[in-house]
């Protein structure tokens, strides 16, 4: 849930989603779901020569599984907060695992 929450905190910001087929889509992050599917509004595609089919699209839904990278606005991100959230999430996951080992009945 770490990255789901993370992306939710970036809603309204401009990002560039880079897909595994090398297509890059720039747009405003509109929403995200638990699979990290992403919805962008007011999109533009830098390389319309190579990807002409995207010219007539304004908003789009991108399936999480086809994403390679998301370029993020560095100035909007509190890296200290992010690292702390990561440590917290990892610790929580570990304690859940320990609890399961301790009570194997389920």
């Amino acid at each position, binding site marked *: 849930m770490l990255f789901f929450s993370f992306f939710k905190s970036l809603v309204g910001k401009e990002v560039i989603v880079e897909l595994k087929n090398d297509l890059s889509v720039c747009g405003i992050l509109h929403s995200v*779901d638990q699979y990290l599917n992403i919805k962008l509004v007011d999109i533009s595609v830098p390389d319309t020569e190579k990807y002409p089919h995207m010219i007539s699209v304004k908003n789009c839904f991108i*399936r999480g599984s086809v994403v390679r990278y998301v370029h993020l606005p560095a100035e909007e991100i509190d890296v200290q907060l992010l690292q702390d959230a990561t440590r917290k999430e990892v610790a929580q996951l570990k304690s859940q695992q320990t609890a399961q080992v301790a009570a194997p009945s389920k």
Partner: protein
Amino acid sequence: MADLDSVLAYTANLMSDIDKKLMIVLKDGRTLIGFLRSVDQFANLVLQDTIERIHVGKQYGDIPRGLFVIRGDNVAILGEMDDKKDLTQLQKVSIEDILDAQREQLQRRDEETKLRNQAMLERGLQPHGDVGSEDTL
């Protein structure tokens, strides 16, 4: 039935696109355009009055395809069409012409890939990437 909130949590994104004219890019690189009539939590889709649009360079052609149920995991992008964004920089051609152009393009790519893969194999390198890999996901 799973509780409604959790179902909505991951479909809410597409519910708002119902009955709109959408462009769907499949994982294999094909482009479909049609009216979205239904979605579910797996992003399975029902598309009505669908056409397949083939682009080659600045040309494109439309093939009527009809009614589709698309399994969600084949979908890469769903785009909302904006008819105001014009297509004047592109040229619409007949189905026959676009298919010919596509065949030519594929053959050219196929030959390039073959040549490269062969040369790589001869030098003990592992070739990767099939024909048209730049379109597929």
